[in-house]
């Protein structure tokens, strides 16, 4: 335990891989139920959404604590989101469809819930490949604009989850609430600072 705390960075990297390890065990020991491919696919989707929620928690923590030291962790959790969504996609393409592109194309075209998943993945992919300090410098102001798309990706992934279900809506509802709170916090901060700056700067014109 001491080691874990002392080496927080290294242990975070390791802990984030545990879901994959457990999933690997469940695959090997045939512990995924009657429809293991779907179970694997959904578990990876769940972890994608969880890491996205964790990554989105960092900025509010920084805002509340006024401590800016967690940016690297935000990047790390973001990259893990990218990692698990990529596996989620790979299971869909390879494990479930064995790269049968005609089946895959029809499935995507005819399934609106997948469109949202595709959108979210494109965003997460773009954010993943532009997460380095180098890309950040290179992109300048665009970087921040680009990375704000994560909010839309978060909303899209929750709807992606909701939209494919027939019965039990409890689990996606939990994610919906968490994401609502995380985005709501940002909206609140944005709104209050805007009000403040409005009060500070005298209006040049009436509107």
């Amino acid at each position: 335990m001491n080691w874990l705390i002392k080496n927080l960075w290294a242990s975070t990297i390791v802990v984030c891989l545990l879901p994959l390890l457990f999933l690997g065990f469940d695959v090997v020991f045939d512990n995924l139920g009657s429809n293991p491919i779907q179970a694997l696919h959904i578990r990876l989707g769940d972890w994608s959404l969880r890491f996205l929620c964790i990554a989105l928690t960092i900025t509010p923590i920084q805002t509340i604590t006024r401590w800016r030291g967690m940016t690297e962790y935000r990047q790390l959790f973001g990259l893990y989101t990218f990692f698990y969504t990529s596996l989620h996609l790979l299971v869909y393409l390879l494990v479930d469809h064995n790269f049968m592109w005609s089946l895959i194309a029809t499935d995507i075209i005819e399934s609106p819930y997948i469109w949202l998943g595709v959108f979210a993945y494109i965003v997460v992919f773009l954010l993943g490949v532009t997460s380095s300090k180098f890309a950040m410098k290179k992109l300048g102001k665009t970087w921040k604009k680009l990375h704000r798309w994560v909010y839309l990706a978060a909303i899209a992934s929750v709807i992606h989850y909701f939209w494919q279900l027939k019965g039990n809506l409890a689990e996606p509802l939990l994610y919906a609430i968490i994401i609502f709170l995380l985005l709501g916090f940002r909206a609140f901060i944005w709104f209050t600072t805007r009000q403040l700056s409005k009060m500070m700067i005298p209006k040049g014109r009436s509107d």
Partner: protein
Amino acid sequence: MIIKNQKDIPSSEITPPEVFQERRKFIQMLGLTLAGANMPSVFASENKLNFANLVKSTTLDNSLKPTPVELVKNYTNYYEFTFNKDDSTKLAQSMVIDPWSVEISGEVEKPATYHLEDILSQQTLEERIYRFRCVEGWSMVVPWVGFSLANLLKMAKPLSTAQFVKFTTIQQPETMPNQRDSKMFEFPYIEGLRIDEAMHPLTMLAVGMYGETLPKQNGAPLRLVVPWKYGFKSIKAIVKIELLKKPSLTTWNKSAPQEYGFYANVNPSVPHPRWSQNSERLLGSGFFTSRRQTELFNGYGEQVASLYQDMDLRHFF
């Protein structure tokens, strides 16, 4: 919306009862009823049926390889208990299914309530290996044990006014948690068929699978199996069968009419509004094997397509 659908059904598409008699010939031709000699004894203790001398249907594609039984027993949609397909196995065990009787009423000459044993003593049980396709996009192959629904309906002598059949699942809130809380649906679960669909020789009532009594989570003691329709049509734990002049609103159709139609015929070219129906995951197929291309009428088109001639299957989904 469904009401509109039903008004749109031209009477020419509704099979007159005389045609049922014709179908008898068809059934015999198929060899489905040629087995009276080996009537299995269905009276046995502990609610277990004796399926010795089970007749195998000679007409069906018996080369179909049944899905491993454990997968079928542990992956059931039974919303009266849970929304989770692997939890119903345990939860359904509390159900009380003995004694069991089935009411047959409505547009029939002889309405009556039958004990299940009395129904079974009149029927020749046979094994039929059918594909089963869920609207959620997975499928399995199940060797059901049962008999043609038509045989039971004939016992009650349907009147010519009987155009639709309504099925009702048992209401047992003591054992069914979601019935107590009226979660998701207004229970009891209701399903329905057009009379010609109900009388079709492929439409069966099952009391067993894999040569054994039907497990509770799979619909014991008596369930419907309509192999060319999505699984939710194949209603479980039936206590009432009514023959009606008009169709009744069915549970899924009532809950989301734009998503689940009255017909619910398996059709890869009519997607569910939120997902494709073009392919399916066959339970038991391994990792890295592709999903299976779904077939029109789940592969039973040769036998049932004539029921839907001149019907727009996109409209009557």
